[in-house]
């Protein structure tokens, strides 16, 4: 197992380099000059040229890329053109927000999708199955930014039940412990802060989870239906085992392998797919940071964030494979 993990981690390196090269070339090919965009409207040509020199943009492209890669291997993504802060520091500040949102969306998604999928599989072609399938399709098809705006209008604008944006009321801002505001508040025993943090994350996590609910529900249903046809299920029922145990201990456990894979991939998608929602909800994650970077042509910031997304995605995939092996003893992660 450790050998397998080591090989997979080493395999990340050429992938990251290729991604870095691709992103670097793509953003430099995009029209727009960061110096012209970021320096003040009142700046002169000389000021703009001075900024370009300061940021190394007057260097040949391959020199810029070389400089970037040499720094990146030392985990130094350079300094943001727009914010003047190390990119690594900016990402570190904003990452917990994105991770917290993705985690709660995954939690919500799986808590809804898994029972729904099992339930639908246990009663195929019934009204429950139809309802669950419809809910799944709606979750996959619904434009999330539209739903987000509608929910904000209803729950914040009209009924004043939930906050419309942000991550927490500022009066609860304390030094982070884990960086997850909900967990930090619970650790501190500050119930008002915990309630506030949960209230802020509820709508964005719900909207973000919808796509996952649809996909995971469908996969769970089909996986369960396949497993429920197996002989050992018939044997268990014949022995008089309670139906809930048949479904969950015998059926679901064996269907879990496929589900884990999908949930893992979906988690990676949630991380990168939250960019628009972070803007709608003014959620201070790395998605909205990336959007700001793209608008400003902040090359170090864009490249740094994309590299982080790529790394996370690769690590999540690795974790999924390890869990895969842990769940199914028949699977060996061999040389």
């Amino acid at each position, binding site marked *: 197992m450790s050998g397998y993990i080591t090989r997979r981690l080493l395999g990340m390196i050429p992938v990251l380099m290729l991604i870095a090269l691709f992103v670097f070339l793509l953003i430099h090919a995009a029209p727009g000059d960061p110096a012209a965009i970021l*320096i003040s409207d009142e700046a002169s040509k000389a000021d703009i040229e001075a900024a370009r020199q300061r940021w190394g943009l007057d260097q040949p492209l391959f020199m810029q890329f070389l400089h970037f890669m040499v720094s990146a291997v030392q985990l130094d993504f350079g300094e943001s053109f727009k914010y003047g802060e190390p990119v690594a520091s900016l990402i570190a500040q904003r990452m917990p927000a994105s991770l917290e949102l993705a985690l709660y969306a995954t939690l919500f998604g799986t808590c809804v999708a898994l029972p729904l999928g099992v339930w639908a599989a246990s009663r195929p072609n019934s009204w429950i199955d139809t309802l669950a399938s419809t809910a799944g399709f709606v979750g996959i098809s619904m434009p999330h930014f539209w739903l987000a705006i509608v929910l904000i209008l209803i729950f914040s604008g009209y009924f004043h039940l939930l906050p419309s944006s942000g991550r927490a009321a500022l009066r609860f801002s304390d030094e982070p412990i884990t960086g997850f505001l909900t967990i930090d508040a619970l650790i501190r025993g500050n119930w008002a802060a915990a309630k506030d943090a949960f209230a802020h994350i509820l709508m964005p996590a719900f909207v973000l989870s919808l796509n996952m609910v649809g996909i995971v529900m469908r996969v769970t249903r089909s996986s369960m239906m396949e497993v429920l046809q197996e002989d050992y299920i018939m044997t268990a029922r014949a022995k008089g085992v309670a139906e809930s145990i048949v479904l969950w201990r015998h059926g679901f456990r064996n269907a879990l392998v496929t589900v884990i894979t999908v949930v893992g991939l979906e988690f990676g998608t949630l991380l990168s797919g939250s960019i628009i929602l972070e803007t709608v909800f003014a959620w201070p994650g790395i998605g*909205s940071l990336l959007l700001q970077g793209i608008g400003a042509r902040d090359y170090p910031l864009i490249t740094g964030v994309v590299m982080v997304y790529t790394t996370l995605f690769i690590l999540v995939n690795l974790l999924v494979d390890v869990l895969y092996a842990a769940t199914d003893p028949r699977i060996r992660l061999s040389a």
Partner: protein
Amino acid sequence: MMPEWNSSKSLKRLVAACATALMLLCAPERAVAKTTVTVAVTETIVGVNPYADSVSLMNAVWCQIYGCMVRYVDENQNYTSDLFESWKVEDPLTWVFKIKPGLKRSNGESVVPDDVVHSINRMKTDPQSKQAHRVSYVAEVQVRDPHTVVLKTTEPLATLLEYLKSVIITSKAQWDAHGKDADRDFAYGVGPYKLKRLAIDNYVSIEKVPGHPLLSPDNPDEIVFRIMKEPEQRVTALFNGEVQIAQFIPPQLVSRVEQNAGTKLGWTDSIEVMFLAMSPLAPPFDKKEVRQAVAYAIDRDAIIKSILQGQASRLDGPVGPGQIAYTPDLEPKYPYDRERARALLKQAGYPDGVAVDFYATVGRYTSDKQLCEAIAAMLQKAGFKVNLKTPEWGTLWSNVQKGGVPFYYMGRGTVVDPSVMLAQYFETNNTPRVGYSNPEVDALLKQERQTFDFSARLKILQKAMSKITEEAPGHFLWRHKMAYGLAKSIDFQPLPGSEVWGWKIKLKPGRS
């Protein structure tokens, strides 16, 4: 037959648990005793370095923390200063500033002339500084005595204060002791508020300096500026009580704010000049008649009435009422006259019309896309064959800065004194944004910058503006009326420059 799984009990329990959790989450909070006003803003917050931002909102935030060299004191654009008791022009290249006696920062440290030297040098040399251009005319800063600072300019410049109004004065001693950390942890100034907390591109929070002479008990103890770029977001947060001031309510949301029980509107005329730029370097705009035809073809009043719902005032020249050098007698004016536009096109050698690429901004200014679509339609009716292009802002602005855009819609903000704007866009070789060159205009603009007699300077400016308007490398359209959404529990009159000064926010009695 598949055995039944009775899940209705589990389902009921699950639904009950979710409903309970939702009810607990939605229970209202008790209000806190300290008064806090939250302002929903659209600008960026770059970081704790006061010289790294170039937007007027953040400049105002740093100004009320550290103090500015000068700022406007009222609607009549009279200057005041947080640091200087007086200033004078000793000779055309020398300005002398006297520091207020006994002036101290919030930590008790005295303000000294070295702070001014340090701050101006930092604006020029700090790698993160986006404000170097504001002190580009300052050749040298000298300390004459413990209370006097002397600025030497590169050329006679009557408008120096217009540049200096954004200059933040930070402490040299704190910088020498702590370096970059001084901005975050030792941000001591002479302003009525001090920095409490800042999250890059998220919010900045400032809190009262007790006993500051500018403040009264009905000013908020804390002001939080939160970035909310989407207008719906700002309005919803206002209705929800999350913010008490929401900047820049677009025309289509004004009536919602007005009709909402707990909110009201505050209005101000913007000092952002909206105009069409036409480069004389690019045909067909190399012909004055074509540029003037554009001006006559656009019915600005109809656009203001219909698309902007009356929330703008037409410009007949580069400036409007309240801006320096405005005169209602400026000529020529360009009343809407489609036939005249056609005649001018014919005169220019385009009897069958002419094709033009028109670059519109999208999402940058109020209703910009709709406005540009209306402008394009009007131009079409006057004989132009308009190819409307809507590039993303970063792309458009980069190309404008390089001089590659022949015809575009643009706004130039913070125009109280038009001197800087006119030089930027219409003086030869200042910037390539328009590519206009006229020796007469160049001479007038240079002369007005160097004329210290205010009345004489106004006349020269008006002459320059008249010439520019007549030649029409820019057709001046309107200034928006900016609507702010306000909670009824506060009084605040929005300012044309979009600054939010803490001492101008008054909390009504009984609000906690």
